[in-house]
């Protein structure tokens, strides 16, 4: 039955042997006989089972697929900790300029001065926003920015001959990538609990930090949307024992021009250029996880960084580098878009943060009463709420889909039961927020049966996720 229904569904099923979707230039040299120049046994015997479709069919297929997908362009998308703000099309226009789009990464520096200058300027912008003097644009996603940072910390201690640093501390509110990163860098991750405000418990931290501690990975504001008000104290506790304070910059949209990590003695941090600086998320990538750090950690940055020598921009390998994190120079296209976005804002970046924080607090104020708000004090760019008792976050989330809203992040942070993490971002109007709140209030009152049915208006109903895992089918 499934087979019948699926007929014609995948691109491969829409083709016919012999159809082609693209015409290549005619050969202008003699054809090389592969059997003459390659070993017989290296030649492919059976051709790969790829689609054989014409261009109109391909365009229609993927256009129709796109219509089964929601993006910021189509729907309000208040996904907490992901900063789904409007993606200005000027960014896309910048990356399409042929002088960049067709630039080979191994082009000698003198033939790529424009690209190096963009990188150098963005390094400067990120330095200004963070207050940290040194930047690397190599990491290709937030998680890789985390790994880069923790590897730099590790290499610092190796270089200093300090061999006993085996532990990385991670608050219980942390993104899953934080402990996973610590493991990947061969550290043991140890969880730190929270105080009554949802912030790192400084007393507990003090008890945990010792000469085996390499770093604390803090997110500020944290994943409850609460500002870590003791961050400077936390840095002090770590520094007293020679450990570093790393800041996960996923939530930098709450800090621009209002708080500089360096002022709180943060040693190293990563940015998510695809979140804070509006380069699109693209359905889960590409991103960029650029890092910024103190002078002490600067020599350990990945290879290469861009420096200006006289009038020339050059790639330079930091003295004690951890090595490369990517084949070339990170996700340059994303770097270019973030550079463009920052230039369109300049010092007005602070307004971005102000409006993002205004919107989140407005949603918090409007939902109060109907939803439980575990940390009902000033929030920053996002707010965590809980459904009325007896209702599930998942059901409310699916119900929101029927109202035309992408659900918030649910069941995260883990420390809040039935968490719904709402991040409206600065690019949404009051009307949109009011309508969203209206839907939320309605869902809070909805009957359980009705909620469990949702969604009924989306391209599919709820899915059988167990089946997908038990009877794995991950290809045609």
């Amino acid at each position: 039955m499934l087979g019948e229904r699926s007929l014609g569904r995948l691109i491969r099923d829409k083709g016919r042997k012999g159809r082609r979707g693209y015409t290549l230039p005619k050969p202008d040299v003699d054809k090389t006989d592969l059997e003459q120049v390659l070993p017989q046994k290296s030649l492919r015997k059976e051709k790969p089972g790829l689609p054989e479709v014409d261009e109109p069919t391909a365009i229609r297929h993927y256009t129709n697929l796109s219509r089964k997908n929601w993006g910021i362009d189509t729907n309000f998308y208040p996904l907490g900790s992901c900063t789904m703000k409007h993606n200005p099309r000027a960014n896309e226009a910048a990356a399409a300029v042929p002088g960049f789009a067709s630039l080979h990464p191994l082009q000698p520096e003198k033939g790529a001065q424009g690209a190096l200058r963009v990188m150098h300027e963005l390094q400067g912008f990120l330095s200004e926003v963070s207050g940290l003097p040194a930047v690397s644009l190599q990491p290709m996603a937030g998680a890789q920015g985390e790994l880069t940072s923790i590897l730099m910390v590790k290499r610092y201690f190796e270089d200093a001959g300090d061999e006993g640093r085996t532990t990385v501390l991670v608050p219980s509110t942390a993104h899953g990538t934080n402990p996973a990163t610590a493991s990947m860098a061969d550290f043991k991750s140890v969880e730190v609990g929270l105080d009554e405000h949802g912030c790192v418990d400084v007393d507990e931290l003090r008890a945990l930090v010792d000469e085996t501690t390499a770093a604390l990975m803090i997110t500020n504001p944290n994943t409850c949307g609460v500002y870590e008000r003791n961050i400077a104290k936390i840095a002090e506790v770590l520094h007293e024992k020679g450990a570093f304070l790393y800041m996960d910059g996923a939530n930098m949209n709450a800090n621009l021009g209002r708080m500089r990590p360096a002022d709180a003695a943060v040693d190293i941090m990563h940015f998510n250029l695809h979140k804070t600086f509006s380069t699109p998320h693209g359905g889960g990538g590409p991103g960029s996880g650029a890092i910024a750090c103190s002078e002490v950690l600067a020599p350990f940055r990945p290879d290469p960084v861009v420096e200006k020598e006289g009038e020339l921009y050059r790639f330079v390998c930091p003295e004690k580098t951890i090595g490369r994190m990517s084949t070339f120079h990170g996700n340059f296209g994303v770097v270019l878009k973030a550079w463009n976005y920052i230039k369109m804002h300049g010092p007005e970046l602070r307004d971005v943060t102000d409006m993002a924080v205004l919107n989140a607090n407005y949603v918090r104020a409007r939902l109060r009463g109907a939803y439980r708000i575990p940390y009902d004090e000033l929030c920053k760019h996002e707010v965590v709420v809980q459904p009325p008792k007896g209702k599930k976050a998942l059901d409310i989330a699916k119900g929101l889909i029927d109202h035309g809203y992408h659900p918030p992040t649910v069941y995260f942070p883990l420390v809040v039961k039935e968490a719904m993490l709402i991040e409206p971002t600065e690019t949404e109007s009051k009307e949109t927020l009011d309508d969203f709140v209206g839907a939320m209030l309605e869902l809070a009152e909805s009957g359980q049966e009705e909620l469990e049915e949702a969604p009924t208006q989306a391209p599919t109903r709820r899915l059988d996720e167990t089946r997908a895992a038990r009877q794995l089918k991950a290809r045609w």
Partner: protein
Amino acid sequence: MARFTPHTEADIQEMLEAIGVETLDDLFADVSPKFEDPLDLSPTLSEYEALRDVEARAGENVSGMPIFLGAGAYDRITPSSIGAIISRGEFLTSYTPYQPEVSQGHLQAIFEFQSVISELTGLDVANASVYEGANAVAEAALMTARLTKRDPKVAVSAGLNPRYREVVETYGVEVVELPFDGGTTDFAAVPDDVSGVFVQSPNFFGVVEDIEAASEAAHVVDALCVAVCDPISLSVLEAPGNLGADIAVGEAQPLGMPLLFGGPYAGYMATHEKFVRQLPGRIAGETVDQDGKLAYVLTLRGREQDIRRAKANSNICTNQAVTALAATVYAALMGPEGLREVAELSISKAHYLADRLQDAGLKLSYPEAPFLWEFAVEMPDVDRVNDALLHNSIVGGLDLGDGTMLVAVTEKRTREELDALVEVVANAG
């Protein structure tokens, strides 16, 4: 007011009132230490002014010339349809498909990407992509350690792109070097404690390697064989899965992604189904919804960081969904025949160029080795030759620093361009 924010002063006042504070500053009462100066950034620009700057910077790059650089990124033809599809807002402005009911577009596209990679590599299952080629190689190295329960230690030769090797080392994997002679790797003496044996084919110097020999050598010491393959080459070369490779990885950039100074590209990874739990990254799988309708969803999530945290098999969160989509659309438009034609055109042109260079008295570094579209050629002063080429509006090959130039030829190069290169090289040499 922020550029892309709709609020009027009246909106702001109403919202502040609803919140119960008086000023925007009050919203940051809990922030300490505060930053109170204006950010020292370049002045705010309009879109028009910003894009004028983009054009000015682009003008400082060398562009619009034939390119003979390869070494991991290739100047290939990209069909216009790809841009039209990947710039659709529904794809471009969405997030990781955590809510499958409203993400079926990306989920099916990922499923199709996985299918394309599985078909090309001859392996059961592929992931949704990782950041790029070097990271796919590094993740594969870590994967071999988990699967063999050995310390991460891999055998590679000079045939592996040196930058891939550097990333593998950054990821904390020990690397042992295999002998490399005459353009190919000697797999006869693989140490018995390695977790993986890597074979890149075509290798860094463009030469086709013996993946079967690498697999046999790996399996003798109970290690796994990882093949690193250019996906275009798999239209003409035997699938690594049919040659005994346990894992195939590589750079998907040649499948329709612009050069864009090194990224974003996409790394691909494929393996046997029995190893799938150690495959990092997202995987889309087929299932049904509650009405029995076929649909797709992210699956085997127990491998991943947001579920398993410190015990996840990698910290990877995002894949490269949009660039992987570009690769999928490319593969669909080309089909098996088109992909083969791309490979054959490139091979024919590269061999034409190699022959002409040899006619002009130059020597290939590995004259006996079978190559596809990239080859190393001896040149005492590569720098001078490249300057002369640039003077003639040609971007020359990669200076390997040992008196050789690595030259890549794609289907984009015309005979006229190839002849022009030979002429300049012959005169400058």
